């Protein structure tokens, strides 16, 4: 049931997917891995859309160099934990949802427990090793994994449905080297909103998901395109089946 305030808040989108769709958003729990460049637009748009429970995880402190893109955090937050900053902003954005902000580094020992019974994982990480861990959890739990990555004016996104689509490791078997990557905030905004859009469609059963396709954004040309992606029968993580393999099995 919705309060009068909620009905008013969501009126312009229940015109699209009805109160049933809004109810599905309210009952959902989405896990957002990262409160940085991608995590900012993702969490803001999922919060204002009314996703009922949002867990957002980050281990970092807000730094001046974050502020060109990490729109959850303000000048006054420099030196503060990103999770505290995120929780405060998201609660103000929407007081009718639950925000769990967890200040921890996602690693092999805690990834599964952190995700818990979430209905989906949004990849807002800045490195592939942690993405692979979350990909493993998504496969084990058979929940969707909404991938996004950015660099400079370029970005990519895809929606992974274990058992149906290629997993992250089918698409990107090897991690690129870590770097201090150049980026403009708008790239995070574009890819983060594509990811949020996917989550909202998935939860409300609207439209067609970005499955079996890699969305590629070229901000220098203002050109978006997609390429088809396929399962890899010899994938280390899912063996091309979307289910856990022994090699990819977690402890």
């Amino acid at each position, binding site marked *: 049931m919705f309060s009068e305030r909620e009905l008013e808040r969501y009126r312009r989108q229940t015109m699209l997917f009805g109160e049933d769709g809004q109810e599905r958003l309210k009952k959902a729990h989405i896990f957002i891995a990262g409160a940085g460049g991608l995590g900012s637009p993702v969490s803001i748009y999922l919060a204002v859309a009314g996703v009922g429970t949002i867990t957002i995880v980050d281990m970092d402190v807000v730094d001046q160099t974050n502020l060109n893109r990490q729109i959850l955090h303000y000048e006054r937050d420099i030196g503060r934990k990103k999770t505290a900053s995120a929780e405060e902003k998201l609660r103000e954005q929407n007081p009718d949802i639950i925000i769990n902000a967890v200040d921890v580094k996602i690693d092999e020992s805690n990834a599964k427990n952190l995700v818990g019974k979430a209905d989906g994982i949004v990849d807002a990480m800045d490195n592939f090793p942690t993405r692979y861990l979350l990909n493993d959890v998504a496969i084990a739990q058979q929940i969707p994994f909404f991938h996004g990555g950015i660099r400079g004016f370029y970005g990519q996104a895809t929606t992974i449905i274990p058992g149906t689509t290629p997993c992250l490791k089918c698409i990107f078997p090897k991690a690129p080297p870590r770097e201090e*990557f150049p980026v403009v905030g708008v790239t995070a905004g574009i890819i983060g909103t594509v990811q949020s859009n996917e989550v909202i469609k998935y939860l409300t059963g609207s439209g067609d998901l970005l499955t079996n396709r890699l969305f590629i954004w070229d901000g220098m040309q203002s050109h978006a395109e997609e390429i*088809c992606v396929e399962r890899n029968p010899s994938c280390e993580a899912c063996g091309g089946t979307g289910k856990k393999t022994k090699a990819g099995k977690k402890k």
Partner: protein
Amino acid sequence: MWWHRKEDKSGEEEMTVKIRFFARFRELLGTDIMTDVAAGTMFTSLITSIAKKNPEGYAAIFDKNGAFYEFVILMRNGKRIDIADADRTVIVDGDEIAVFPPVAGG
């Protein structure tokens, strides 16, 4: 079909293929490169010859031994080519080749 087989003056068959680079590779090497290649050209040698036009572009894709970096994604006509197979994958007339790096930032 927009492409066609043709013969050069020596009578050897030539083919036209399209190479698409993405993200950083695109900044360094351009994209939608149409090029004529001789029959029997392998995937790796084609990309090597194109990438060598910009040393920085070459260095972004190939290691110092001239092998593809393991994270580079290679595709031909929408199908993945394993790096291990690229040396022995023959380019065919009309192929559309895509070469791109995963972007890792968030």
